[in-house]
């Protein structure tokens, strides 16, 4: 069994879906620092995905600073996903810069289309923020 929740949907890149699911699990506390992460082989067999895809998923998560390779142990969840190395810090800055355009704007557009006010939208975001905490 995998230590994070995921249900793959066709039509979206598998890599993106799994990276998102793992990120979500780390942020919500379903995966904690020091937890062992499944091997490429296990990931491939459990998700029924191509081994090369599983390899890329692990590589991307290591690059993002969420996982680290511990010699003799395997891949583990890192202690401080926010900090990490210098490359992780750089990618965090890039992600942060992209946040308003990539994620916040579609949310605002959709809220306006539905005729919601700013306060309604903030309420929705606040509720999701709490839901992620209670899913621990």
């Amino acid at each position, binding site marked *: 069994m995998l230590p994070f929740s995921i249900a*793959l949907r*066709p*039509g*979206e*890149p*598998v890599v993106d879906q799994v990276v998102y699911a793992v990120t979500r699990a780390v942020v919500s506390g379903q995966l904690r620092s020091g937890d062992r992460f499944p091997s490429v*082989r296990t990931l*491939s*067999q459990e*998700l*029924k*995905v*191509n*081994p*090369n*895809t599983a390899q890329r998923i692990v590589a991307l998560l290591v690059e993002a600073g969420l996982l680290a390779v511990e010699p003799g142990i395997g891949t583990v969840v890192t202690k401080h996903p926010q900090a990490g190395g210098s490359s992780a810090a750089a990618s965090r800055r890039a992600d942060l810069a992209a946040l308003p355009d990539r994620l916040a704007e579609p949310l605002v557009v959709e809220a306006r289309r539905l005729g919601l006010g700013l306060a309604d939208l903030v309420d929705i975001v606040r509720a999701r923020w709490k839901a992620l905490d209670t899913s621990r």
Partner: protein
Amino acid sequence: MDYAIETEALTCRYGRKCAVDQLTMHVPVGSIYALLGPNGAGKTTTLKTLMNLRPPAIGTARVLGVDSRSLGPADLARIGYVSENQRIPSNLTIGEVEAFCRPWYPTWDAALATELRDRFGLDPRARIKALSRGTRLKVQCLLALAPRPRLLILDEPFSGLDPVVRDDLTTGVLSLADRDGWSVLLTSHEMDDVERLADHVGFLNDGRLVVEEPMAALLGRFRRVEVALADGAAVPAQRPSSWLGFAVEGRAVRYVESQAGPAAEAAWHAAFPGATIEASRMSLREVFVALTRSTAPAAVPGRSR
């Protein structure tokens, strides 16, 4: 050798009917390659020719570096082949069939055979003739996987099986994956399974290979485009050839873009000034339908042979 399988202008005929027409395909070593296509496209004939079960009319196929017509027992011992056309002696038990096959394969892995038998829930005392179709396919997979082949050729391994059996078989196939230089060629209509499993795709229609590329590249270049026309706007008479399945209903225009990218996007906006345009990614199932419709013999003018 960079390719587990390579064919050049491979052509197969049944009498006057051309089942496979100048097929040139390449299965990279280490890949899981899905050969897709509608029924009757020539997939099974291609696989049979690769396994030297029938000779090509013209052209060549090299399998693990060997010409398909010279594949001998030592070569075939490195290839696992699963097809519904295969026959297993029906009076034997699963255990007896295993014992019969084992001596032919120097690389037979008894521990793996036991592991697969347990995973598939196979009883060695059960007789082949008493087995359901799904269980018989499991036996075939066990026999194909236990020798730890360098190449697996699977002809519709999942067809008509329930999701649990499909999952079991997929896990069995993937359990071989940590071997270097291990490759798989499979045909299937289970598009959702294939989308996750394969990293290379070949698409056959009417005996011809119309697409061969990495899965990510194929899914990356297809978009379903939905256009809401601006008031009084007309639909362009001239349309790029990369637009497939173009349809208009009132103010709604729908088509499939097969060359998605910045240039294609610019072309959409140039064709529909002032319109609302939405593009979304497509599943392999949707890409399959679009490819099948757009490359059917009737859809391609001037194609005859």
